[in-house]
């Protein structure tokens, strides 16, 4: 004789969540542009950047196999993307002798172009990218998250920095951006 499930038993069975592919496709559709901007901040060379972007997508797809829903897909996506970016920076440090600086140093760094108006948006954007690409990975995470419009709580969740530390860094970012871009962006 066949065993039938009661309605109450069926109600306790958890509904099947989205699959790894569905989670990935959803994230790629919603945050594809953000991922491209992020890759641009981690790699200036167009071909290597394209590879990096694909690596980010692969890491994202693979990571969703272990997605437990304890944070939002947006936080998860940014964590994975930044972690791939940080690994890329570490790898590139061995082949390129570029010195990376922290936000504190950037504040005091004399820059020939700071305060100078940028001719157009492209020039202002190039200057912004160059500034970001010179930052150490953790500071780069924070400034990118800030530019993407994430709030301090989300930045803390992604980076693991305390709220006070995030606030301090955002304060510095605002000062640096204001110093570097207040004329350029207005004029553009």
């Amino acid at each position, binding site marked *: 004789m066949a065993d039938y499930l009661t309605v109450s038993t069926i109600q306790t069975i958890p509904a099947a969540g989205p699959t790894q592919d569905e989670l990935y496709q959803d994230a790629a559709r919603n945050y*594809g542009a953000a991922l491209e901007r992020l890759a641009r901040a981690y790699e200036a060379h167009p071909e290597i950047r394209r590879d990096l972007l694909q690596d980010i997508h692969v890491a994202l797809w693979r990571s969703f196999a272990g997605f437990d829903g304890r944070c939002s897909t947006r936080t998860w996506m940014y964590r994975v993307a930044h972690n791939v970016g940080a690994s890329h920076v570490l790898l590139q440090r061995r082949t390129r002798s570029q010195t990376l600086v922290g936000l504190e140093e950037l504040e005091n760094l004399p820059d020939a172009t700071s305060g100078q108006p940028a001719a157009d948006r492209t020039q202002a954007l190039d200057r912004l990218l160059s500034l970001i690409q010179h930052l150490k990975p953790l500071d780069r995470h924070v400034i990118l998250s800030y530019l993407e419009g994430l709030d301090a709580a989300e930045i803390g969740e992604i980076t693991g920095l305390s709220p006070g530390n995030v606030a301090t860094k955002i304060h510095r970012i605002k000062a640096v951006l*204001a110093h570097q871009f207040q004329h350029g962006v207005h004029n553009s």
Partner: protein
Amino acid sequence: MNETSNKQTQELWQSQPVEGIKISADVIRRRAGKFERRIYWRNIREYASSLVAAIFFAYFFATTHIVLFRIAYALFIAGLAWVVFQLHRQGSAKSMPGAMGTLTCLQFFRAELERQREVVANVWSWYLAPLVPGFVAITAASVIARPYPAGLVAATVLDAFVAVVFLLVLKMNRRAVRCLQRMIDELSAAENQPQSGERMQPTT
């Protein structure tokens, strides 16, 4: 004024033109497979180069009739086997992409730096030290089994060359460890900074 300027910088960043690259799940799966294969072949290359060196030593082992040289070649083969075992162990302990979403950037970055520091700091014990007994044995064999002073001269030249290479590797590694440690300390300082501070006030 500053706040307006910052909003405009955010707007400038978010409105930059993007290519709108779309990658299907199939392409991702294929590329993930390619990544696995790349790691697999890199390991194969490392094992193969050790195997080639081991074959050379095995050939010398089989063709020499001097016991001391045989001992030296056997020690080299054992040393290479130990190096391959360590390569395999460290390769499989690398952080997997699955953990990337569960770890915050701070945790992930520090774990990566600590892993690299351990590998670099321990190069002496897992990569260089296993080959030392072979070099010591071949020095002894050259001095004892070959006529004086040819054996002594050959052993001295070989040992001096090996010592210089080992010292250079050690010096470079110590520098790399110091650099990695500095970065780890910076991250620890960032993590341990107090929850509130005098710079927390808004800028507007």
